[in-house]
């Protein structure tokens, strides 16, 4: 496919004039520059400025905000955020990978249906979806009602770290399934048959063939779950009560409550740094997979 694309691109640059080139590429890029690149740049620079009296920023430049990131209170929050987001990502993988595997083995028409069914919840308001879990997990909620019928005492799942992990995983799991599915599609099925023929049982086939060859897709999925989880403040708030402060909550507080924009920006910088790290890992895995010709 990519070779046809380059062929087409080569042919087109002759027939379309420079005016067309300008008209097509500039407006969208300009828009993205103004409304995405500049805001990003602002945040990155605010991290190094000082907080203004009523919000906003002012000079002088300082590294104080970055320094605060290494302080004990924040380290605590950072650690707990990474653990919670990491747990959500891991659970999303554990549920999502087998599901993606099943989908990849369906007939093409059913694959389409299955994929849409996975993606559909994602296109709804995630507040509502989070809210639905409140309904389910509440002390008087459905889960406890059901348990009561069987004679088990009500569990207090709501307002715990576990509920937050569950809520985050629920919000983003479709984004774990899709890239893994895409990776599985590109996998040569005869490789798994060959492994089986050579004597490999299901676990060994997963460990030695499936996992290494779908790693780029897995990492993309991890990216799409881990990073948004870190930056989410609604789910920790609604499902975690006061118990779980995550980076997302902190950032939101800095901007809307404490009005310490520079610190909030520094926190965002931290999230962006983690994003960059994972993207780099993913790019490296993808490049290696291409080199194998897989």
């Amino acid at each position, binding site marked *: 496919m990519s070779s046809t694309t380059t062929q087409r691109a080569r042919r087109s640059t002759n027939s379309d004039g420079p005016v067309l080139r300008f008209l097509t590429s500039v407006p969208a890029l300009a828009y993205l520059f103004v409304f995405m690149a500049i805001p990003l740049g602002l945040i990155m620079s605010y991290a190094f400025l000082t907080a203004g009296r009523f919000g906003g920023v002012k000079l002088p430049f300082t590294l104080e905000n970055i320094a605060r990131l290494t302080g004990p209170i924040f380290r605590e929050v950072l650690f707990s955020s990474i653990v919670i987001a990491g747990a959500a990502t891991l659970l999303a993988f554990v549920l999502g990978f087998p599901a993606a595997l099943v989908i990849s083995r369906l007939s093409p028409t059913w694959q389409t249906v299955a994929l849409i069914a996975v993606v559909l919840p994602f296109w709804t308001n995630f507040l509502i979806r989070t809210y639905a879990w409140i309904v389910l997990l509440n002390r008087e909620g459905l889960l406890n009602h059901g348990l009561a019928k069987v004679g088990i005492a009500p569990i207090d799942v709501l307002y715990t770290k576990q509920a937050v992990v569950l809520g985050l995983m629920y919000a983003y799991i479709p984004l774990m399934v899709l890239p893994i599915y895409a990776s599985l599609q590109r996998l040569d099925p005869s490789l798994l*048959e060959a492994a089986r023929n050579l004597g490999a049982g299901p676990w060994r086939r997963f460990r030695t063939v499936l996992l290494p060859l779908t790693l780029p897709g897995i990492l993309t999925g991890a990216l799409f779950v881990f990073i948004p989880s870190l930056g989410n403040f609604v789910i920790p708030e609604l499902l975690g009560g006061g118990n779980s402060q995550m980076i997302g909550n902190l950032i939101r507080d800095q901007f809307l409550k404490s009005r310490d924009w520079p610190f909030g920006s520094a926190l965002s910088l931290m999230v962006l740094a983690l994003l960059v790290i994972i993207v780099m890992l993913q790019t490296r895995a993808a490049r290696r997979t291409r080199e194998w010709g897989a």
Partner: protein
Amino acid sequence: MNQPLVAIRDLSRAFGDVQALKGVSLDIGENEFFALLGPSGCGKTTLLRVLAGFEQPDSGNVTLDGNDLLDVPAEKRPVNLMFQSYALFPHMSVEKNVAYGLECDKVAKAEISERVAGVLSTVGLTDKAKALPNTLSGGQRQRVALARAIVKRPRLLLLDEPLSALDRKIRGEMQMELKRLQHEVGITFVVVTHDQDEAMSLADRVAVMNMGEVRQLDTPVQLYRHPRSVFVADFIGTSTILRGHADSVGLWHTEGLPTLKVGDAFANAIAIALRPEDAKLVSRTDSSAKLEGTIGSVFFQGDHALAQVLVGDQQFLVAIREGELPERGGEVALTWKDDAVIPLTAE
């Protein structure tokens, strides 16, 4: 033969409306180079996959060394498969690919290195041990696939269209390689192919399949010289096929042609076959001339040419090995030795 290595009995398998295997039965002997030959859709690949354990038949059974094979799960069968696409693990070196099966069997590390080194030297790839598959040529990749299967010393080695992906020149080399290897390691090989050249040149015995059935099981020479059905006569090599019947006095009747002399063996034949190399062009005045016809197209094939000769509505194929190539429209006569004609008793 005494106790066959593999005994296949009444194997049937349907996919939806399509009957891929219809009660197939055959024996494969120890140390044999066996071929399953047939056009696509004939069931040979299904049979292969049943032997490998990737498909279960609807009915019938298969024994290996006298033991039931179908109950054994695919990963535990002493049967190894060389895939048409080779299916080499792209993320593992040649060494690791070859060692894979031994690791699954939990063989000791020291023994693994020894056996891997041994088999790599057998296929001549010792210097590529650490290379990745996508750096190898087609022929090299095939040898790795072979090595990977052989190193486990299976009772049966199945090869799915082993030569189809190779260039013509390499194909010839690989053919000899495969023959040599089979003798050297002493494993029973079963080749599945649609290419009769492959089957005929490699195998000790060939099972010709069509539409889920084995039409004829014989040595290559027998298949070529004594096909028993129209299908086999047509599929193996080229021939002119004349449908008709024999009468009580040893004459063959085909509509549109004069009667031809054949022997008594033709009583049950529904058609006769004549190989192009057994037919000869002579002048119409020659005493041995049996039929008169006109030359149609002539196909030059290098060491011989094939000439179409039209006799009435019937087209004959004649091989010409020496002399001038005839011209289109030329008026000629055909002749052949009486005993060169082959009786075909089935479709």
